C-alpha cells in the first residue's frame, strides 16, 4: 500500500522558473526511499510540498490516501519532517521543545517520557536536554529534530539531508531507527547527496534533474549492475 503518492506535481516560482516539473513517484509501506539530485534540482521544493510547508496548485500529493491539499491536518498527523538546517525555538530547552511537539500530537505524559528516553538515549542527547537550544551545535539540533520527529511514531518520515552534521554513532543509530520504522510498515523518504549511503540503505530511489524525474525504481532497476554514482553522473552529463 502506498504511504506517499505524488502525481504530476509541479511548482513554478515567480519569473517562470519551474523548480519541479511534473514529478510523480510512489513510496510504499516498508520503503526507504532516496531522493537524489544535484544542487537546485528541486529536491527541497518537492519535500516541502509533501510536508505542507510549500503551497502548490499543480498536481496532487497523497499521504496514506489523504490529500495534502484537501486534508492537510490528517496528512501532518502521520508525517514527520526534518529539514536540512533545522531552525528550532532557541529560547526553549531541548526537553521543552520535545514536550511542545508531543503536546501538538496529543501524546500522553507516560508515552512521551518512554519515547524521549529511548530516542534521546540512542542519539546520546539525554544529558543536554535541559540546556537551551541556543547552546546546541548543528549536530545536536539535528538530533533533537530527529527525536521530535519520532515522538509521535509517524507513518511517513520525510527528511532533507538527514546525515549532514551527525557524528558517526548518531548516523549509525539513525539508520537503525529507519530500518526499525520500515520493518513496522512505515516509510522513510529522504534527500541526500551521499550516494554510498543511499545505495546501501535504500531499497528504492528517484533521481531528479532540473525539476524532472529522470530515473526511478528499485535500487536494482536503477543501477542495473553499475554503481549509483555512475548512474547519477551519467544522468547529470546528459543534456
Amino acid at each position, binding site marked *: 500500500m502506498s504511504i506517499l503518492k505524488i502525481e504530476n506535481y509541479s511548482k513554478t516560482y515567480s519569473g517562470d522558473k519551474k523548480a519541479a516539473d511534473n514529478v510523480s513517484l510512489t513510496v510504499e509501506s516498508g520503503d526507504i526511499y532516496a531522493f537524489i539530485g544535484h544542487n537546485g534540482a528541486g529536491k527541497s521544493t518537492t519535500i516541502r510540498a509533501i510536508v505542507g510547508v510549500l503551497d502548490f496548485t499543480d498536481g496532487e500529493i497523497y499521504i496514506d490516501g489523504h490529500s495534502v491539499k484537501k486534508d492537510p491536518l490528517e496528512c501532518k498527523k502521520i508525517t514527520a519532517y526534518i529539514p536540512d538546517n533545522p531552525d528550532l525555538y*532557541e529560547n526553549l530547552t531541548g526537553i521543552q521543545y520535545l*514536550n511542545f511537539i508531543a503536546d*501538538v500530537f496529543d501524546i500522553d505524559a507516560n508515552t512521551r517520557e518512554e519515547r524521549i528516553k529511548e530516542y534521546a538515549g540512542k542519539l546520546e542527547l539525554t544529558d543536554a536536554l535541559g540546556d537551551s537550544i541556543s547552546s546546541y551545535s548543528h549536530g545536536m539540533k539535528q538530533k533533537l529534530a530527529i527525536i521530535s520527529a519520532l515522538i509521535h511514531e509517524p507513518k511517513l518520515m520525510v527528511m532533507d539531508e538527514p546525515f549532514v552534521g551527525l557524528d558517526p554513532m548518531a548516523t549509525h543509530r539513525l539508520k537503525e531507527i529507519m530500518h526499525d520504522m520500515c520493518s513496522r510498515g512505515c516509510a522513510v523518504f529522504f534527500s541526500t547527496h551521499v550516494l554510498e549511503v543511499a545505495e546501501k540503505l535504500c531499497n528504492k530511489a528517484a533521481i531528479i534533474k532540473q525539476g524532472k524525474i529522470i530515473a526511478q525504481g528499485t535500487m536494482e532497476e536503477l543501477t542495473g549492475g553499475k554503481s549509483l554514482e555512475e548512474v547519477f553522473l551519467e544522468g547529470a552529463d546528459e543534456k
Partner: protein
Amino acid sequence: MIGNLIGYSMLYLMVMAYCVLSAIGLGSVGLIEYMPLLNVVTISSISLIFTFIKSNSYLFGFREYDMIVSLPFSIKTVVGDKFLYMYIKSLPWYISISLSMLIGYGIYAHPAIWVYPVWIILSFVVPLIPMLVASLFGFFFAKISSYFKHWKIVQIVLIFAVMFLAFFSRFFIEDMIKEGTYTDILNGFSDFTGKFETWYPIARWFKEGVLYGNVLSMLLLIAISLLLFEGAFLLVAGSYRRINAIITAGSKSKHAYRLGKQQKRNIEKSVAFKELKRFFGSIVFLTNAGFGYVMAVLVGVISLFVGVENIVGAFTQGTTISIDIIRVAVPFIIYLMTGMLALTCASPSLEGKNYWIIQSLPIKKMELYRGKILANLYISVPAQFIGTLCLSIAAKSSVAEIVIFVLEGTLLCFFSATVGCLFGVKFMKLDWENEVEVVKQGMASGLYLFVNMVLTIIMLLGSVFLGMILNTYLICAMRSVLYLIITAIAYVGLKAIVKEE
C-alpha cells in the same frame, strides 16, 4: 505588500502631520526662530532613546556574525558598518521629522532659499552623535552584564532603568518651562533653550548654520560627528568578540539532565508557554512590549502613596481634576499603559525562520493564535489587575466599583490581545533580519498603537465628561458592551483571515 506600503505611508504622514502642527504651534506664539532647535531636540531625543533600545540587537549576535568576523575586516570596521546599517534604516524617520519641521519653518519664517538645502543636509548629520552615544551606552551595558551569569536579566534591568529615567525626565523639563504666566513660560522656554545650546553644541551649530548661514558651525557639526563616528568603535572593538561569545553561547546547565515525569498541556497552553519563553528570552521584545506592563504596576503602587490626583496631574500638566471624575476613568488610566503594545502584534511575525515548525505540524491556525492571545493575557491581566486595584483604592472607590473596574480591565486585556493578533496576522512579516523590524517598526505594531491610542483617549475623555452626568456603573456597562462588540468583531476578523490562508 500594498497594504504594508499604505500602512507605512500612513504612519509617516501621521508623524509628519504632528511635526508640522508643532511648527504651527511655535509660529503662532512667535517662537518660530526656535524651530531649528526643536528639530534638533526632537531628532536627538528620539534617536537617542530608540537607538539605545535596539542598538544591541543590531551590533551583537547577528546571524552572519561568524562569517563576517572571519573575513579580513577589522572588528572596528565590522561594528562601524553594523552601526551604519542601523543608521540608514532609521534615517527615513528622522528625515521625515526634519522635513516636516522645515515645512512649518518655511511657512512662518519665510527663510532665504539657501536655508532649505542647508537644513536638509545638516539633518542627515544630526542623529549621528545621539545614535553613537546610545550605541556606546548599549555597549557598556552589554559589557557590564556579560560579567554576570544571568546577563540577560541584568541587561533588561539596566535598560528598563534608563527607559524610566527618560520617561520621567520629561516631567522635569516641563516643570522648568511651564511655571506661571504666558510671559513666564516664554522666558522659561528661552532660558531652557539657552542652557540646552550650551551643553549640546550640535543644537547650536545646527541653529547657527540654518539661521545665520554660519559655515564654520556647519563644518564643525559635520566634522565632529564624523570624527566621533571614527573614534567611537575603537572603544567597542576591544571587548566585542568576548561579548558576542557570551551572547551567542546560550545557557548550559552545570549538571546533566535527568529525565523525570513529563507534563502534558493542551495545544493553546503549550503554544502560550512557548510564546512566554520567547518573550522573556528576547531583550528587544521584553523591553519594548513589557515596558507598559511594568509602568502600570508601578503607577498603581505609587498612587497608593502619592494620591491619584497627583498621578493624573503629572500627565495633565498640573490641571486639577476632581477625584470623583478620575474614578470612572481608572481602568483606562491603567490600560493606557498595559495596552501600549500588545504582544500579539509581533508574535505571529516573530515565528520568522521557525515558521516551518508550525507549517509542518498538525496544528490549526486558530489554535496557534489562541495560544498567542493566551500568552499575552498571562502578562497583561495580572498587570492590569494590580494597577487597577491599587489605583481604584487610591481613588477611594467602593468595593462594587473596584470589582467592576477589575472586570472591565480584564475585558480591555482581551480586546488588546485580540486586536493585536488581528493586526499581527494581517501584517505578518516573516523575513525579518532583526526583531526590531517587527517589534518596534512593524506595521502591525504601528497600526495597533494608532487605533488603540485613539480609542483609549476617546474613552478616557468621554468617561470624564459622562462622569459628570451619569453614574459609574452605567458608564462602565456602556464601555464594556462597546469593547465586547469590538473584540468579537476582531476575533471574527481573525478567523476570516485564517480561513483565507
